[in-house]
């Protein structure tokens, strides 16, 4: 079992000048966007930032713990519906509704994970796959709660007296919550818990010998991942006015998985970068919907064949080869 990932040692290293430049450029783009662009670009930016958070959630469970979860869209959907309904029901600041969405999704995740993880990890993939399908059915058929196949109108998010009515107004909040979740994920990854996640991924036997409770670790990872996906659902409600069950199917799970794979399994920067790079690619692909599935599938296959560590590692390796010649 060898997976190449950012080791904690590498994470603690001083930030390289390239990374610093990239960070500065990203910050500049984030700040400059609302000043120079139109509403549609801001809407796409909001959506990409939500997908960044979804990727962080999937990173925790696949990248850190090596567990295969296929119900990410379902937890995202639970977060969207739960936060939207909470927002409608009680007159509290919107972050409370977001937390509620994250908690509900996390609780359901813990429950499913606890059931599925009693067995080999292959069962987690299958059970979550089935759960995702079942959950989409619930979204589409539980009329009294989700308004079923007609979709649900999401009322505007409120922060005290401030009502958010446009993508542009929502943007700073979306950026803030996205950065917050990146911080939370980094903190988890560097904590004792994160180390035990990676220990479980690398070798269960060795992890057990170190006194790590494997089942508990897996369930916690799964629940955390679901909660982060639910939080992303709450972020979605910041700027969206409508949710339809059709957009919460396996397609969305695959989209998030593809993003994480393109970025590189196992690194947080990869999950974030993958979400942005592939998010932009899939936005371009919208022009050719008939090729979308072939391209997604082809990307997954080709990356697994030739660049399993993701696009950025692949490019880095090629650059190094070009500089030093092949070794």
């Amino acid at each position, binding site marked *: *079992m*060898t*997976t190449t990932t950012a080791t904690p040692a590498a994470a603690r290293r001083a930030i390289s000048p390239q990374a610093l430049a990239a960070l500065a450029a990203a910050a500049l783009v984030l700040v400059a966007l609302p000043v120079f662009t139109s509403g549609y670009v801001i809407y796409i930016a909001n959506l990409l930032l939500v997908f960044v958070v979804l990727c962080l959630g999937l990173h925790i469970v*696949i990248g850190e713990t*090596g567990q*295969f979860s296929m119900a990410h869209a379902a937890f995202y959907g639970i977060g969207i519906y739960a936060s939207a309904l909470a927002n409608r029901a009680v007159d509290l600041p919107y972050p409370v509704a977001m937390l509620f969405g994250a908690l509900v999704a996390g609780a359901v995740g813990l429950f499913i994970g606890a*059931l*599925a993880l*009693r*067995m*080999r990890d*292959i*069962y987690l*993939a*299958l*059970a979550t*796959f*089935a*759960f995702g*399908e*079942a959950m989409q*059915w619930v979204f589409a*058929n539980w009329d009294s709660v989700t308004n079923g196949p007609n979709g649900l109108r999401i009322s505007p998010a409120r922060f005290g007296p401030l009502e958010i009515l446009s993508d542009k107004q929502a943007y700073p909040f979306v950026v803030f919550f996205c950065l917050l979740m990146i911080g939370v994920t980094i903190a988890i990854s560097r904590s004792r818990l994160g180390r035990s996640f990676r220990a479980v991924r690398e*070798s*269960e*036997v*060795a992890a057990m010998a170190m006194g790590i409770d494997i089942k508990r670790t897996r369930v916690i990872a799964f629940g955390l991942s679901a909660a982060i996906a639910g939080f992303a659902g709450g972020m979605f409600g910041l700027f969206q006015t409508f949710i339809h069950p059709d957009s919460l199917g396996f397609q969305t799970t*695959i989209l998030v*998985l593809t993003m994480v*794979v393109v970025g590189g*399994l196992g690194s947080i920067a990869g999950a974030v970068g993958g979400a942005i790079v592939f998010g932009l690619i899939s936005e371009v692909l919208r022009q050719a919907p*008939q*090729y*979308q*599935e*072939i*391209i*997604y*599938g*082809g*990307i*997954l*296959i080709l990356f*697994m*064949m*030739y660049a*399993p560590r993701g696009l950025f590692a692949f490019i880095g390796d090629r650059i190094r080869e070009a500089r030093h010649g092949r070794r």
Partner: protein
Amino acid sequence: MDLQLALIFLQQGIASGLVSGSVYALLALAIVIIFKTSEVPNFAQGEVFMAAGYIALYLFVFQQMPIWVVLPATLVAAFLAMALFRRIVLDQVAKSAKDLVYLVIATLGLSYVLKGLVRRTGFGDTPRSFPALVPTDSVMIGQASVTVLDLTILGTALAVMAAFFWMFNYTKIGRAMRAVGMNPKAAQLVGVDLGRCHMLIWGLSGVISAIAALLISPKILMTADMGSIVMLAFAAAIVGGFSSLPGAVVGGFVIGIVENLVGLFISSRAIVLAPFLAILLVLVIRPQGLFGGKLTIKKV
């Protein structure tokens, strides 16, 4: 509902369940033989089944080829596609990444490519049906009504399973496959060609899926999304323990019957939830499935 009607429903549910269950059993078998030898849950199995159905439809309906050409051509195409996928794609994936997760993601990629390709051809735009090759006259068995086609499906499926079990248990190649399933390294040491064995297994799995598609296509409307019934096959495999061939078959029939009874007694809307509930029940009551052996822990 009075007792008389309940009895009729019960018989009908079991009869129809045996028919649809035989298709789930075939697909579950196709999934389990791959899982036993490669430890990969092949998420493209449903799309292989779907694509095979469309190949047959294309040759038979659009090219007007005789059926004795169409059937072998479909099976050969399914065999080659899966064997080549294993050889060209998965061997390369296994070379560049040691983790199973990568292989699983590659099969997800294949499922999407196949779905996209079928959609591109445009056959998936309108639901079509494969013409039935045997009469669809009704026969009464007890108080249940089945068609000659249903009986043909069940009979063929059972014959295929029997042939496959014979191959797996009593031929040299079957023994090699079982050896690879138990311990690939040791199998290689005693002279099993791993690469060839994997190709054969994947190819056979494709053939079994194609047979399932040929059997069921006259009974369902074909769409590019018809591969989603693989969920029921996965449920069947889980009920059977996921590494036992007889388990997969029994699981298929169990799922088929449960699905039909749920549809008759509760509502057809609840059928969608049946596989998920079946999986959850099995996981809660008997996590290793009905036929699963003892749990072993993987050494490093």
